[in-house]
């Protein structure tokens, strides 16, 4: 089965390591993914803040392309794009008048039949068994799984995992031999699109997230969103300035963490592109056995 891929703009630039790691892990697990031809920007925060019709038309063009290409399932690694595509599909489904208006703007056929999934669902639905089979290097360290906003909210539209204390990423991380920690900030906002205009807000909000993860003993923060990653990683100087201390905890994409567990190299997963150096402890926690997607872990 071919799965469509909507990368979104961040994955072609500031978060290209997310793209590289999704491609590398898909190849390693023999999952065929095909990039949507001639996809366009989803409009992100800017479009829905300023122009509602535009904010629905831009994502709808991509959904119409997926339908035309007969790609029934599209994986959207960027949580913000995932949200915009899902919200568009939902709104156009609920409002037939708006749906015909958008079809008129696009001059394309749009039915709204695509199945839109995020990267966590991609692993859950297509890779659970394969990860188990191919695992050569169980991770053996502690992780703080960070979801941010748009993977789980609003639950009425996304209908994915629990909005307050989601567990799907923890389940995947356990299956690759990591130990997820309990912490307070897994669905708090990192400051998102304010990165350029109000960097100080990002420093403060992301600072609280990074500090809590570090204080509770995580060796790495795991994310599934390029906005979250760039705010927690590239904005580390602002974070450290706000907190008044060094916080060297690295931030990995879920696809990179899974990639490491099946023996892929740091370089092919794009891990060397991060601003915060990725130094991971070897065998800090010992993985006794991995069965039925559940690892028994002993902290040494």
């Amino acid at each position, binding site marked *: 089965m071919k799965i469509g891929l909507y990368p979104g703009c961040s994955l072609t630039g500031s978060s290209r390591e997310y793209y590289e790691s999704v491609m590398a892990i898909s190849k390693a697990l023999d999952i065929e993914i095909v990039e949507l031809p001639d996809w366009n920007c989803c409009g992100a925060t800017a479009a829905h803040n300023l*122009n509602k019709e*535009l904010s629905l038309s831009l994502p709808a*063009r991509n959904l119409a392309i997926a339908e035309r290409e007969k790609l029934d399932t599209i994986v959207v690694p960027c949580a913000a794009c995932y949200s915009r595509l899902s919200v568009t599909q939902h709104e156009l489904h609920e409002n037939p008048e708006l749906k015909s208006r958008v079809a008129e703007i696009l*001059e394309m056929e749009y039915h709204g039949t695509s199945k839109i999934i995020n990267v966590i669902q991609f692993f859950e639905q297509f890779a659970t068994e394969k990860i188990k089979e191919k695992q050569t290097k169980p991770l053996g360290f502690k992780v703080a799984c960070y979801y941010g*906003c748009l993977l789980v909210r609003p639950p009425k539209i996304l209908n994915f995992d629990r909005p307050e204390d989601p567990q799907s990423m923890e389940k995947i991380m356990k299956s690759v031999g990591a130990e997820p920690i309990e912490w307070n900030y897994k669905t708090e906002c990192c400051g998102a699109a304010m990165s350029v205009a*109000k960097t100080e807000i990002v420093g403060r909000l992301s600072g609280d997230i990074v500090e809590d993860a570090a204080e509770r003993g995580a060796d790495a923060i795991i994310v599934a969103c390029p906005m979250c990653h760039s705010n927690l990683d590239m904005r580390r100087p602002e974070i450290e300035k706000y907190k008044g201390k060094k916080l060297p905890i690295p931030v990995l994409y879920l696809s990179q963490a899974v990639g490491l567990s099946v023996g892929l190299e740091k370089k092919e997963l794009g891990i060397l592109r991060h601003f915060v150096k990725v130094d991971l402890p070897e065998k800090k926690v010992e993985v006794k056995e991995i069965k039925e997607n559940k690892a028994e872990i002993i902290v040494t």
Partner: protein
Amino acid sequence: MSAHSHQVEKNNLISLIKKDTGVNIHKCYQCGKCSAGCPVALDEMEYPPSMIMRLLQTEDAENEEAVKKSYAIWVCLTCEMCYTRCPMEIDIPTVMDYVRQVSIKEGKTNPKAKSIISSHQAFLDSIKRTGRLHELGFVMGYKLKTFEMMKDATLAPTMMKKGKLHIFAEKIKDKAHINNIFKKTEKK
């Protein structure tokens, strides 16, 4: 005024929001859960989300002006926490989007929000040109709008070294289509 005529079309903001988005702000009973969970209510907003709901409920022209002219509507991160936790399931982020667009249309944007609005506009300018966001073009466009020329000057060299910054924009093939979408959705 009878209870019935109260329901009849009115031109105040709360009625327009109900008509255009379906969101019923009258359901808000001021529990304050949205404001408690909002990551920017305490430090950034002059009116937290629950107060914006209340200001709109009064149907008072002055209060509506205060909302349209507020900084709060622009500093809202659309993190969706308020909507997720609201016991009455009021879609506050949709209200925020709506009020932002009214505020722009009527020329009532808060001066403090200039950098935020400029960044959204620079973002849209970039995708209008090429169909995809060109990050460098976006930041340069933002600097030209705000004159914050030194903003993030130290970030670019490291991004470049890490292969994260493209000098040239990635263009989609059917640029004409994107142009057409912009043309049809931009308000006259």
